[in-house]
């Protein structure tokens, strides 16, 4: 199969249909439990998340800050398996929000790249976000995602050269994930001005859709980013709602509150 096969992108079509910037919410599978994470994702969708980013817990998450590390550590300690992600996708797909899976690469390698793509597609997943896989190393994944009709979201960073912005934009499908700052996931009080420039540069390099992640935690930040990007990716602020809650029910309430405030922020842009 050649690289120019026209694969329809569930996520890109959703972004186009929204007519505004999307709120993309991250939660890891398995925190506080597999069932608990499914309930949390459903809560997040009901409260206004447009696209779901479902994280697969991994032992060595080098792109994640302390909040997500804590949740992922707890998920692994609780016995969460990679197969639970496929089952969780099944249970949250079809509720109006496309589901992307965020995974470190060794988990997919071990599962089998084509097998993972096949099972994710069968479960109703939209594609993968791969924080430690650059397009240069991704030939197996590019082939498998074409075969199974999945999106592949690669990252760009403020340090990316124009050449790499172009090659990453060309390899991506769905959207390009623009890291707002140099750093790992986590809440930040300011985003700086590099994010807006990076979005503009990535579009100029050929990307149709660019969403911004890393550090966005507040409604006013979400509104600001929604003013120039196709989507606003929020993780740590949502995970914190669950981590800091005294019990699961309170965690879901707080998650709904934080999500809808962010959703209002996104909708208030422009």
């Amino acid at each position, binding site marked *: 199969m050649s690289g120019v096969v026209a694969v329809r992108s569930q996520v890109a079509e959703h972004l186009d249909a929204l007519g505004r910037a999307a709120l993309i919410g991250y939660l890891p599978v398995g925190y506080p439990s597999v069932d608990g994470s499914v309930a949390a994702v459903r809560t997040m969708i009901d409260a206004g998340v447009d696209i779901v980013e479902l994280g697969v817990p991994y032992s060595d998450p*080098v792109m994640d800050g302390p909040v997500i590390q804590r949740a992922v550590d707890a998920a692994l300690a609780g016995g969460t398996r990679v197969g639970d992600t496929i089952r969780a996708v099944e249970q949250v797909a079809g509720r109006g929000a496309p589901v992307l899976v965020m995974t470190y690469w060794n988990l997919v390698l071990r599962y089998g790249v084509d097998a993972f793509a096949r099972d994710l597609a069968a479960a109703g997943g939209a594609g993968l976000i791969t924080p430690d896989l650059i397009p240069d190393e991704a030939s197996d994944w590019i082939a498998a995602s074409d075969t199974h009709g999945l999106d592949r979201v690669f990252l760009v960073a403020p340090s990316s050269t124009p050449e790499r912005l172009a090659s990453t934009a060309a390899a991506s499908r769905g959207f390009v994930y623009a890291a707002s700052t*140099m*750093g790992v996931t986590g809440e930040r009080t300011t985003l700086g001005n590099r994010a807006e420039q990076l979005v503009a540069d990535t579009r100029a390099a050929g990307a149709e859709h660019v969403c911004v992640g890393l550090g966005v935690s507040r409604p006013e930040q979400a509104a600001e980013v929604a003013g120039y990007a196709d989507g606003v990716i929020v993780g740590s602020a949502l995970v914190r709602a669950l981590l800091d809650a005294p019990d699961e029910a309170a965690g879901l309430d707080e998650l709904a509150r934080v999500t809808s405030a962010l959703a209002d922020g996104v909708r208030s842009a422009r």
Partner: protein
Amino acid sequence: MTGRPTVGPLSDKLLEATAGGPLSTHAGPYFGEFGGRFVPEALIAALDELDTEYHKALTDPAFGRELARLHRTYTGRPSPLTEVPRFAQHVAPGVRVFLKREDLNHTGSHKINNVLGQALLVKRMGKTRVIAETGAGQHGVATATAAALLDLECVVYMGEEDTRRQALNVARMKLLGAEVVPVSIGTRTLKDAINEALRDWVANVETTHYLLGTVTGPHPFPEMVRDFHKIIGEEARAQLLEEIGRLPDAVAACVGGGSNAMGIFNAFLDDPQVRLFGFEAGGAGISSGRHAARFSGGQPGVLHGAKSYLLQDEDGQTLPSHSVSAGLDYPSVGPEHAWLHDIGRADYRPVTDDEAMEAFRLLCRTEGIIPAIESAHALAGAIQLGAELSGWTGDDGHDPVLLINLSGRGDKDVATAAAWFDLIEDEPVVLADQGEQL
């Protein structure tokens, strides 16, 4: 007399690999199917800059002269080659054993070779801050040393468990002016220290160089760190030729990440009559599951930026490793070793904690040399090889010759050894925690 058995038959993979040119100058990013760059995009620009600057430095005579000057006047190179006949009697009758004495380098191990090379590159790149990971503290101490020498800010990440067990090395790094950051997430050991160093690097890459301590990680680290250590094998080869007029029959080294082994193997890779042996930490035994024997108990996978052999569970989660030697206690291994393993150029075997500690004691008592426990794995491996070695009498009737890289000295291991051999009645100054410290 039949002479040595030929090495081989040469595998198809080895023939294919050598058809691509000399093994010793093989360049990254790939070593066969291993290596690569499995890192966040944010780091790619810095890795490209490092690769470019490194290759520019290689062709710059001033860089070579400065590194050579530091090695001569600061590291103490060339390190001696010492024949150890009393130890050799325990390997096999008639076998001659030579030790390459990296233990006599400044800071006590081979680590300084790579650290000085990278620190000079940092100056060329105009960066002002270096970060490093350390398990036992040896690479951290070497990095702190080079940072003091070259006026660089230095931050060393170290698992919280390791900082507690290695309080003296933490103090050494602080004396040298480094900041030591305890890492309290995950398993709180070397692997998690590397995760935290990578997170720091992603955030501070514009001012900061990650001074990676071994032949693992994303390209160009495996190739570059190997090149900074290949002086070990080059010196040993020349010293042996001077001493006995011929090459060794076999070369042995311990393999954690694999930098000392790559350093001594490199000069012999293209001499197929020289057998290469890497000894991994067999810990409490492969069947116990408590080991760091990636070739005996791991499968190919990706960790910390490179594809190589990896201790992992059926989901691909990294498994904790175990060894009496913190320097070998790492779940993955350099990708060039994975390649040499797969093409059959080098042979990797496990050595248990017990075997390593017996060899440690033996070298102390027969030769008056206290080795690092890491290096003791290579000594124990030589004893394992014993019977095989004695069959390798050459065509010219010479005695079999074994070259071992004594990668470090054992000062840092005295507390562990004292506890292991029950030599101290009171608690030692540094608590030896079931021998897991280093």
